[in-house]
């Protein structure tokens, strides 16, 4: 048998191309296309009184200047609310170009199209917009107060509100001998991929069709919305996602205003128009995430077992709600984590502010949930004087599947389908040296150093539906073409999907060629988000490959005069099991699968009508069959798989400067069987790095007028290699019962608990309650000062402030 490729650390097949300058990212497409630039609002909240574009029109090289009035038909309507949800009480979305009002700094108002981007920017700078200013609503606190209102016609700033319950939390809390309350806060960060967004829209006047290249996370979604907005038949629009320079969630929203405006312009000008977002635009007009204000009340017994958990949180969703409430919904459905919580209530408010919109960023609301639950676990341990791991062990779910009693983002009820939390915890303690830490702490103290150990556990619903598909074609050369509709932005799909297909088809990996995100090839797909690529498309391709194999064996069985059930495929040869002498290449089956009239080459000759010795008295293609060794199949699960993991961090805090260093970072990770451990580890490393950024470096600093003060890489402190710790990993592989491959998603795992694990470690080092992240040396230094002056108890019962 050929060695199974599933589970092997195979180096990536996309790498040679990407490393030698042969990647093709969206800005590499149509290098000479005319370019768009946008006039964006410099004000967070204002009415537009007048737009004077005359200064731009006489610049040589300017081709078009568009305001809202120039948008045609449906494109002039509001952008869609993509994911409706019953909790949304006041759905507001923006326009492709602002109409009458602006609601955040960066909102596009005028589109300039010119010969190149330089000239487009010259022209944009010459356009005068007259505003009537309104007071900006910035931050959860101000939005919650409701004295200033973002959207006219609303009485408050509440976009969505919901209460979800499991059991009776009031009696759970009443019966608890201990009750703690925590006020918590999480600040804004952003995905910040190295490549910004971008779109190249090309109109073919002869065909009346639109071809769009976009760095989107959903080419099928973008295609559908562009067809609807441009009022074109779906068949006249194709969207291709080329190589994408990172996404992490920010490229899932669609259409971005610029994508729609540029597509309209391409049609109107009957040409190709390009917009490549620059870094400043990305800061002020793509999406952010993470800001929440949270309150937790927990009741527990003498052993630290939770009896009731009551949570309220306020989520800053920015100026509009195009992606619905996915982020706060994920927060609310992940709070219970890997624990048995007998009674639970969560209530959230999603709030408008005059800031950049909030849509999913790697983890999509789950990091916030972990922060609440795990800060609570540490507080319980402190209150009872118990080891923090012991409290967690006493509350872990031990029976699987475990119903969560909540409706998840996919609309289905959540179940923790698999895992072994007790085993994971044992591995984590061993990896980080949990039981030896106190002696290390003592040794450090004797050297004048201050260290702390932190922990955070999480679950993550991954691999959400509704479906993903696969399409496989075996060419007569033996080349295997694989298509799936979801998009790729660093996830090694060309490698891991090839592994899955090569395993099933028994062909060498090098024969398998994977292509993604091209609606011309597979027009049914959902997209790449929520750690779903491997689970959804991986399983779809596994099922597709099975179908192809079945067909191949059937055709080969006729040629080899063998029962298909006795056949196997080894290294691209179909043979009778254990008898390589009776065999034929898969390529030859492909030839036979497509009966031909014309022989254009040697192999085709074998499929022509006189190739067989005698005529059979039946049609060449039998009823119910199709020509070609080619199949399509879809995978649609009943519910999401739930992956899990546990992180531990050791930090050192400088007693004088309050500088925070991560000395060690350990990860136990369970995403089920790993298709390619090299790739999974890479995902974990990158996820942790983003978590570290969110813990210690990154925040979106808005002033009270809604100006983003740090809209550059100089002041938005994305970590360099010097700031990111070496990550030590170990894996559990508990299979999911929810899909044929037993896999669970891995893409977001590294990020979700990282800020919380680091908060836990800083608290352990400093003996100061850490209730807000991120944390920088200046803030920690001030906390030390105020902590010395105030209450010293780690487990102090805080009073709710609402």
């Amino acid at each position: 048998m050929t060695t199974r490729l599933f589970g092997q650390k195979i180096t990536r097949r996309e790498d040679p191309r990407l490393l030698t300058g042969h990647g093709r990212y969206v800005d590499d497409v149509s290098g000479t296309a005319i370019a768009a630039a946008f006039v964006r609002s410099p004000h967070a909240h204002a009415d537009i009184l007048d737009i004077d574009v005359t200064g731009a029109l006489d610049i040589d090289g300017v081709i078009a200047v568009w305001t809202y009035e120039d948008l045609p038909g449906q494109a002039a309507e509001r952008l869609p609310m993509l994911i409706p949800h019953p909790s949304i009480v006041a759905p507001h979305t923006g326009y492709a170009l602002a109409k009458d009002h602006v609601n955040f700094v960066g909102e596009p108002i005028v589109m300039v199209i010119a010969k190149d981007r330089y000239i487009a920017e010259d022209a944009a700078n010459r356009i005068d917009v007259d505003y009537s200013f309104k007071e900006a609503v910035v931050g959860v606190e101000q939005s919650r107060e409701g004295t200033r209102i973002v959207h006219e016609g609303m009485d408050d700033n509440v976009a969505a509100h919901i209460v979800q319950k499991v059991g009776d939390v009031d009696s759970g809390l009443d019966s608890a001998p201990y009750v703690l309350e925590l006020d918590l806060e999480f600040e804004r960060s952003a995905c910040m991929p190295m490549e910004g967004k971008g779109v190249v829209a090309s109109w073919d006047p002869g065909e009346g069709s639109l071809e769009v290249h976009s760095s989107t996370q959903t080419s099928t979604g973008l295609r559908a919305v562009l067809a609807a907005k441009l009022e074109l038949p779906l068949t006249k629009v194709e969207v291709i996602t080329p190589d994408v320079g990172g996404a992490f969630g920010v490229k899932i929203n669609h259409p971005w205003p610029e994508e729609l405006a540029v597509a309209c312009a391409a049609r109107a000008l009957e040409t190709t128009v390009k917009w490549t977002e620059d870094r400043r635009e990305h800061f002020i007009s793509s999406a952010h995430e993470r800001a929440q204000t949270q309150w937790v009340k927990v009741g527990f017994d003498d052993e630290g077992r939770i009896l009731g958990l009551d949570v309220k949180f306020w989520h800053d969703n920015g100026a509009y709600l195009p992606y619905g409430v996915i982020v706060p919904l994920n927060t609310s459905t992940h709070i219970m984590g890997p624990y048995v919580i007998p009674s639970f209530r969560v209530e959230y408010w999603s709030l408008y502010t005059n800031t950049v919109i909030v849509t999913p960023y790697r983890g999509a609301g789950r990091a916030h949930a972990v922060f609440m639950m795990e800060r609570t676990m540490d507080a319980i341990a402190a209150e009872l004087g118990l080891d923090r791991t012991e409290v967690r062990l006493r509350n872990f779910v031990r029976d699987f599947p475990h119903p969560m009693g909540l409706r998840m983002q996919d609309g289905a009820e959540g179940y923790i389908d698999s895992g072994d939390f007790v085993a994971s915890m044992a591995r984590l303690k061993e990896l980080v040296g949990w039981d030896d830490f106190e002696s290390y702490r003592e040794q450090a103290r004797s050297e004048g150093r201050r260290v702390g150990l932190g922990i955070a556990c999480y679950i993550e619903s991954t691999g959400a539906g509704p479906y993903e598909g696969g399409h496989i074609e075996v060419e007569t050369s033996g080349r295997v073409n694989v298509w799936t509709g979801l998009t790729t932005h660093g996830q090694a799909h060309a490698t891991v999907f090839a592994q899955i297909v090569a395993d099933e088809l028994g062909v060498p990996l090098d024969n398998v060629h994977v292509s993604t995100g091209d609606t011309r090839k597979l027009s049914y797909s959902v997209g790449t988000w929520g750690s779903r690529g491997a689970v959804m498309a991986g399983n779809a391709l596994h099922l597709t490959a099975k179908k192809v194999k079945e067909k191949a064996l059937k055709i080969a069985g006729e040629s080899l005069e063998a029962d298909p059930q006795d056949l196997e495929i080894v290294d691209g040869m179909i043979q009778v099991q254990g008898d390589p002498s009776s065999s034929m290449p898969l390529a030859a089956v492909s030839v036979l699968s497509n009966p031909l009239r014309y022989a254009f080459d040697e192999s085709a000759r074998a499929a022509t009508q006189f190739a067989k010795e005698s005529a059979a008295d039946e049609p060449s293609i039998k009823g119910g069959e199709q020509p070609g060794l080619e199949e399509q199949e879809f995978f649609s699960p009943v519910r999401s798989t739930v992956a899990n993991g546990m992180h531990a961090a050791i930090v050192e805090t400088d007693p004088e400067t309050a500088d925070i260093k991560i000395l060690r970072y350990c990860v136990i990770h369970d995403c089920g069987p790993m298709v390619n451990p090299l790739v999974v580890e890479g995902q974990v490393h990158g996820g942790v790095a983003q978590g570290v950024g969110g813990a210690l470096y990154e925040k979106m600093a808005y002033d009270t007028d809604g100006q983003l003060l740090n809209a550059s890489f100089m002041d938005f402190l994305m970590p360099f290699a010097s700031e990111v710790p070496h990550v030590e990993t170990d894996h559990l592989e508990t299979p999911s019962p929810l899909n044929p491959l037993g896999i669970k998603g891995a893409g977001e795992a590294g990020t979700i608990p990282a800020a919380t694990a680091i908060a836990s470690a800083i608290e352990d080092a400093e003996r100061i309650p850490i209730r807000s992240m991120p944390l920088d040396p200046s803030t920690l230094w001030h906390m030390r000062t105020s902590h010395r002056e105030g209450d010293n108890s780690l487990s102090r019962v805080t009073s709710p402030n609402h």
Partner: protein
Amino acid sequence: MTADIGTEPTSTIRLSVNGVPHVLDVPDRKLLSDVLRQDLELTGTHVGCEHGVCGACTVQLDGDPVRSCLMFAVTAQGHEIKTVEGVGDDPENPADVQQAFIDCHGLQCGFCTPGFVTTIDAYIDENPNPTEEEAREAVSGNLCRCTGYQNIVSAVQRAAQLRAEGARL
């Protein structure tokens, strides 16, 4: 006072890129990164921030890594420029640094990668046997949002090893 828009100053320049001489007419203000990508169609050099922090656009100028987004093409005359394609442009036969990235899974989306490759290509000539800490420092001027840097640090050491082996052959 900006120069008159519409009568934009341009220059005829001679650029030597990856050992190939080019004569081009370009606006004076055009950044080297854009000239490489648009005029010479060397799209391996990527633009990530256009303010000199991220390092995606790093090319070698007379052997030293520099930010091509912080240089006007006009001012690059008289220097030898090496881009990622100059390090190695054959996917079938990647250069040592490129092979090291493959071996160590040092890239994911690949967007920042060319800037790392050009940086490391110069670095391992200066320090043929870097420690892990030195390797980490060597790449601390380039941002990557995918990998967490761990495997890039390994790739620096692997690249040095491959170069030493190549030199011995």
